[in-house]
């Protein structure tokens, strides 16, 4: 164990970095970029300290601090990571410098841009490490404002509408969660506290649990997003600037799934168990619906956005299926989706900078002028659709395996979703990079620049690495995943598909 509170430093370093950015005059765009890059890179390097000090053998929370904040109300500053949040923290710190690189072309109002981006990083990291419901809620909401501004100021034409929709959808959900948090707070028998680990044991009747679960679920389902609540996502993804899309897809969406794993299930296990069929149905609908709608999209960013809905459906399916394979696969898939979809948005962002159009029909034959770009895109697309040997396969396979053990027939629509994924991604790839050149501008598209290579290379390496050797990742996930699975299955009152309780993958 380290003496250093790595975790807390990592969380607040970006926020402190905004002060540095604030000191740079707004005309010096170059210095602003370098400053933001430096802050995020240092944050990432420090976060490696978390990874190295992480103890694989336990499901407990590690490396955190606990300080009283408002003792009158039982509010404390409690942080810590476990196998679920570890990779989310790493994903965030890892993608942030790359997002800064992807924002190199932001010339207009660069200073507030980087300030908001760094604030966003602190907000997101805070959500993943908070172990006090109050603290969690503060970060949860606080991450909303910078994202709202990023979309609204630097987005595309419909940015204001998209930003508003994003903010309000999330806000309505989170306010319902706030009521549930307060209700839980007052139901706690001991001295009032927001401490997550203490609240875990709160005795609640099933009816109350159900209501509170729905309160939390409302908030997380919007963020995931599950299908009836997803409409903000295509707009927000499409209109956001590249770095915004990357952070949205890679990290923000994970907040929802993370919240389900961390809070909704452990706090209200009975209600969660009871509502498994409902959640799984929504997840399956998301998988099929997202994929089907993605096929017919004409706008590349919308296509990627709908693909996210399908992927997140997979994650939720894995989480709620109630087996260790499903849970670990779901958590790993959160990481995978962050990498591959993040990369897709970066690649398309690069393409957009060259051609300034999002319509798929405007492209065609791009591979001729930009072969490297095309190759990288294909690689990432294959990862996203789950080609064996790449990361997406590992996660999706585990989820399907977990599902198969418990609910055999649910695998069918889920697998159908994978087939659809192959269709929309490969078809989009074909229409953009191959085929006849309909527009002469496509002939003069420059290939990837060195900066873009630097930005993409780490992701590509990780995609391949997880695909071939996922063990180090799964090792760290599994103890914590097992704990949540146990909570979800507790009295095994489920309609058990008696086949597999095989705990070893």
């Amino acid at each position, binding site marked *: 164990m380290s003496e250093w509170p790595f975790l807390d430093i990592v969380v607040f370093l970006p926020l402190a970095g905004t002060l540095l950015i604030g000191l740079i005059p707004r005309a010096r765009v170059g210095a602003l970029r370098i400053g933001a890059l430096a802050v995020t890179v240092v944050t990432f390097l420090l976060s490696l300290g978390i990874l190295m000090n992480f103890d694989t053998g336990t499901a407990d929370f590690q490396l955190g601090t606990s300080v009283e904040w408002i003792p009158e109300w039982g509010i404390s500053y409690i942080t810590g990571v476990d196998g679920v949040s570890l990779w989310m923290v790493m994903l965030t710190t890892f993608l942030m410098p790359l997002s800064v690189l992807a924002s190199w072309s932001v010339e207009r109002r660069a200073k507030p841009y980087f300030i908001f981006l760094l604030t966003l990083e602190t907000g997101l990291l805070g959500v993943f490490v908070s172990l006090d419901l109050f603290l969690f809620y503060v970060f949860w*909401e606080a991450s909303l404002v910078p994202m709202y*501004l990023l979309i*609204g100021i630097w987005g595309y034409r419909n940015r204001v509408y998209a930003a508003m929709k994003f*903010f309000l959808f999330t*806000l309505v959900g989170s*306010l319902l969660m*706030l009521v549930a948090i307060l209700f839980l707070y007052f139901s706690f028998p001991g001295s009032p506290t927001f401490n997550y680990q203490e609240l875990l044991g709160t005795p609640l009747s099933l009816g109350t649990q159900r209501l509170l679960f729905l309160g939390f679920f409302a908030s997380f389902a919007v963020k995931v997003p599950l299908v009836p609540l997803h409409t903000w996502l295509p707009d927000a993804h499409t209109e956001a600037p590249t770095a915004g899309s990357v952070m949205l897809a890679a990290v923000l969406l994970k907040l929802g799934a993370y919240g389900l794993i961390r809070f909704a299930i452990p706090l209200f296990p009975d209600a969660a168990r009871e509502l498994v069929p409902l959640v799984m149905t929504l997840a399956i609908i998301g998988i099929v619906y997202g994929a089907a709608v993605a096929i017919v999209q004409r706008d590349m960013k919308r296509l990627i956005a709908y693909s996210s809905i399908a992927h997140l459906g997979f994650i939720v399916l894995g989480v709620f299926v109630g087996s260790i394979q499903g849970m670990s696969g779901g958590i790993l898939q959160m990481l995978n989706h962050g990498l591959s979809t993040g990369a897709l948005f970066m690649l398309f962002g690069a393409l957009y900078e060259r051609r300034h159009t999002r319509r798929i029909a405007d492209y065609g034959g791009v591979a001729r002028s930009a072969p490297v770009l095309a190759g990288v895109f294909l690689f990432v697309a294959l990862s996203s659709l789950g080609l064996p040997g790449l990361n997406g396969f590992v996660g999706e396979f585990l989820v399907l395996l977990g599902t198969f053990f418990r609910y055999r027939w649910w695998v069918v629509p889920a697998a159908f979703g994978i087939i659809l994924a192959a269709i929309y991604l490969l078809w989009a790839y074909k229409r953009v990079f191959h085929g006849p050149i309909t527009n002469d501008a496509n002939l003069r598209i420059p290939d990837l620049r060195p900066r873009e290579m630097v930005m993409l290379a780490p992701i590509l390496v990780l995609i391949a690495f997880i695909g071939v050797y996922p063990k180090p990742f799964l090792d760290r996930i599994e103890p914590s995943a097992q704990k949540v699975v146990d909570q979800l299955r507790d009295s095994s009152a489920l309609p058990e598909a008696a086949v597999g309780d095989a705990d070893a993958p």
Partner: protein
Amino acid sequence: MPLDIPAVRLTGIAPEIALCATALLLLVIDAVLGERRNRWYLPALASIGLGLSIYFATEAWGTTRLELSGMVAVDGFASFVKITLAVFGLLTVWLGRDFLVRERAEEGEFYGLVLFAVAGMMLMAGAADLIVVFLALETFSLALYVLVGFRRRSLLSQESSMKYFLLGSFSTAFFLLGIAFVYGAVGSTNLYGGEDGPGIVSSFMATGASDVGLLILAMGLLIVGLGFKVAAVPFHMWTPDAYQGAPSPVTGFMAAGSKIAGFAALLRLLDVTLYPLREDWRPLVIGVAVLTMVVGSVLAVVQEDVKRLLAYSSIAHAGFVFTGLIAANDRGVSGSLFYLATYGITVLGAFAVVAVLSGRDDEKVTLRDYRGLFYDRPLLAGALTLFLLSLAGVPVTSGFVAKLVVFGAAIQEGYWWLAVVGMVTSAIAAFFYLKVLVVMYMQEKETEDAERVRSGPLSTGVIGLAALATIVLGLYWGPLIDVAERATLFFAGG
């Protein structure tokens, strides 16, 4: 027969006396020294008066007794509200100074009226008899009617003053009829009762339930009168107009001050005196609260004028405070106090920004005038953003904590659905706060202004203080909530 004149103790109304004396002195000094270019001594004197009243209110902290034949209560609750009001008064005077210099308006009268208004509001907090509530209400209302019309060149200002006045007197008549009915039902208008006569509740208990109908009718009428002052729906019609017409510093003061004064009286009346009858008044107040939250939030969405927008927002906030009042438990009362104090500071800050930006004649107050503000005046826009987020109830601001505590109180009392209504309306309300952000951050400025607005040193100070308070109380509110909790040890009397 020897005339026995009882010794009169004035600790209870010392803050009010200090203010009234200072106000009179101000008027005299202004008249004696006459027209001068820089009349810095006037705001200085007003500040001293407010400081004195804070001192006297602090002195009274910790005691609980009735004074002046049971007419005035001296307790932590009154002290808390009085100190808060004096702080609002200080901010208003400083903010008003820049405004008055810019508009070349009469300074002495302005400060005098502000001090009288603060004195009236303070009396509301300490009033232990309905007739004192009435007098206090009229004292601060009359001062406010004039302050609203203080933009002498603006017809808008005077018309809103007239409208405020007419509707205000109209609602006062209902309030008065309420007092008369209380008197008719129980034969007393005293909230506590004591050696000088029985109070409302003890008389009520003595007479039995015979006149309960009259008493409930009276309660309804009293709620109408006080609901008017705190801008509760359906007695809110004056709010948008008065807010729009009044000079921006006055608008901030009205929003902050008359809200806390009105709620102070409501809290003492409903949560203390009529606590035994809470099941009778709750349905009525719940109805008002829900209406207020919904109407305030929904109507704000369509506003194009920043001051009108903040007016509807202030209506919605009255509804949120009502949830704390309805809970009627310790957390509800202390939460309402906390809410009113932090809301007041935030809203004064917001109107300070509005006042600075509104320019000459206080006229640039539509959303169009705020386009691209962030790129023009990043600090002002940042401060306004902070205030708006606090009003919207986003974490890390005092507004979030305030919402948390009043909704928490409602949930604790079993009114979780009321909290849900509050949350949903907060989300609607967030829409129009965001609308202002959209204008400030996401739209381009239309024309280059010839003259750049200048923020006077005092206004800058007020904005800075308010911003600091908003964020500090959002991060570390323990001490203030602690004080608010101790302030709820009412004088129970009887």
